[in-house]
């Protein structure tokens, strides 16, 4: 197979980063990204893009750590380069604070982020309702810039981007040799995956350029993440809620919770409300599947279900998915050249 045709379904951070990785590991592939939405209308555009991992209950910790490490290393290099501002990647320092001391004092990622240490008593005085805290420096991927930067690099490598709603993965079997399913929440329909469920998140994006640190409550529900132009204030975690309409009660509640962590936010301006559905799963599905009808086969690589942790592990799962694509190609090339596709 001279030039395997790969379709990547989904143009959020997972789809674009996976497509990019495929162009890097398989330069002979012809890659097309298919999605009903592109930036700024993806779930990834709503997220703050902070590199603070979400723990997946059913994925082995060493694998999550590997994904995070690969992602952090990759983005660290970009943040240090001349492309940092265009790519929307920047370092940010701050604090994770807890009202009661967490069971796990050292999260699995503490040695990957920079300068991780417990907060001093003096630092904790800024958070009178919290007893314990961790200070560290991590990275943030601002969207849309990061997604647009990925798109730009994809186009430069010859990748096609098509706005198209894929109703069924099988519909791609004639046009493409391999399909990579990075459809996020859309995988529920495309893959018939009942283990995938939305966790609705509402956030505010505000103009508060004097806020230079992130602040996150250890419960994960309240957070302040300063981006390039706006600060993301969050949030909500509503399991099973599919509504994409902003809820005014939640807006008020998020604002109040964030102001109690950072009182200067009372002066925030131009507040926008956004909603996204975290495509959640007990474990991220990075897995090969072969769809078939009769003699016809369609290899599918799944890469979805990242929930609240997409940005934190995106490069790591893209690496794995691209590796699986490589294996697929070898398998296809290994079989008779009179393709049974």
């Amino acid at each position, binding site marked *: 197979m001279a030039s395997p045709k790969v379709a990547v379904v989904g143009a959020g951070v997972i789809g674009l980063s996976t497509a990019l990785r495929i162009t890097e590991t398989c330069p002979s592939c012809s890659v097309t990204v298919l999605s009903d939405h592109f930036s700024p209308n993806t779930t990834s555009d709503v997220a703050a893009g902070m590199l603070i991992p979400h723990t997946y209950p059913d994925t082995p910790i060493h694998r999550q750590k590997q994904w995070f490490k690969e992602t952090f290393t990759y983005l660290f290099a970009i943040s240090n380069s001349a492309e940092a501002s265009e790519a929307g990647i920047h370092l940010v320092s701050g604090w994770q604070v807890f009202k009661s001391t967490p069971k796990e004092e050292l999260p699995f990622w503490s040695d990957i982020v920079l300068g991780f240490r417990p907060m001093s008593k003096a630092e904790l005085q800024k958070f009178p309702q919290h007893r314990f805290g961790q200070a560290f420096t991590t990275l943030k991927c601002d969207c849309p810039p990061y997604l647009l930067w990925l798109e730009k690099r994809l186009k430069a490598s010859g990748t096609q981007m098509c706005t198209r709603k894929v109703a069924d993965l099988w519909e791609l079997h004639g046009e493409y040799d391999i399909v990579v399913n990075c459809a996020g929440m859309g995988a529920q329909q495309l893959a018939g995956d009942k283990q995938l469920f939305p966790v609705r998140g509402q956030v505010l994006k505000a103009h508060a350029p004097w806020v230079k640190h992130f602040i996150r409550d250890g419960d994960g529900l309240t957070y302040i993440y300063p981006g390039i132009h706006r600060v993301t204030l969050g949030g909500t975690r509503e399991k099973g809620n599919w509504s994409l309409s902003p809820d005014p009660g939640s807006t008020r509640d998020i604002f109040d919770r964030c102001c109690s962590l950072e009182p*200067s936010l009372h002066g925030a301006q131009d507040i926008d409300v956004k909603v996204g559905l975290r495509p959640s799963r007990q474990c991220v599905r990075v897995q090969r599947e072969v769809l078939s009808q009769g003699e016809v086969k369609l290899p599918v690589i799944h890469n979805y279900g990242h929930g609240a942790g997409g940005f934190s592990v995106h490069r790591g799962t893209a690496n794995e998915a691209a590796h699986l694509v490589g294996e697929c190609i070898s398998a296809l090339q290994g079989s008779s050249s009179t393709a049974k596709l």
Partner: protein
Amino acid sequence: MRVAVIGAGVIGLSSALCIHEQFHGLVPSLQLEVYADHFTPHTTSDGAAGLWQPYLSDHGNLQETLWNKETFDYLLGHLHSPAAKEMGLFLISGYNLFTEPVPDPSWKNIVLGFRNLTPKELELFPGYSYGWFNTALMLEGRSYLPWLTNRLTQRGVKFFHKKVESFQELFSQGVDVVLNCSGMRAGDLQPDPELQPGRGQVIKVLAPWVKHFIITHNLKSGIYKSPYIIPGSEFTVLGGIYQQGNWSEENSAKDHKSIWDGCCRLLPALQKAKIVGEWSGLRPARPSVRLERESIRLGNLQAEVIHNYGHGGFGITIHWGCAIAAARLFGSILQEKQQLASPPGPRL
């Protein structure tokens, strides 16, 4: 009791506020006036980035370290007040970088979370092998000076836009005490060979992705002669110029290039940053801050001057501690003039 403050930079305005806060209740006849040829946004304080950070070494000047601490603690106490945004006050963290190990600074326990940089963090800064990380404060002059001005105006303090030519000029008008906060131009009022300009130049850019201050140090060259990057609330300040004895307030193309090259080497992404301004200013440098009383005989009158100038590149860093000290000196003047039964209590 007429008190004239000469100078409307951070030192003049904060000293005026501190004195008014301490004494207006105790001295009903207290009348405060501020005289300056430049007001915000045209003072030296307006050009400074506004980062609270003393020099690396206090050279044994413990008094200045204490004033720095008083200032930091005072500002930290205001961080959560509704006034913080209006004051231009916010927390900021960042890096101090060196090419060799150095002793910890006098202010390591004043700032928050002071620690050494890890090897991985040092990878961000090729050429630097040692450094510190800490959380400090920004106090932007462009906001703080108007805020001080508003507080003073509310308190009935009067402002006069004029260049005072001599202390005599004010005393002959009936002023009782002069607070000399004239910064760089103190020499015009009374010769002081120890006061010299430490010329600085800065480039203002839009680089909102930069969330940390980055200050490099070249121990051989001296303070502020090595690139630094300080992100403010609206723009980021790039600097690294300190020229002792240079009185020019014109921007120099050579200095521009030096700043730009140095800072872009530190943060390559700055090459894409949009330049929105450039400014030169004179740090009123002195081996130590002149903060003391001077009695001047004018005919049969004893006139009192409180000097409070010579804060170099750390005026914002030290201002409130000095204001309190100046107020204390004012208190002793009042005592001597029997305007006060006894000095005010622990408030000071």
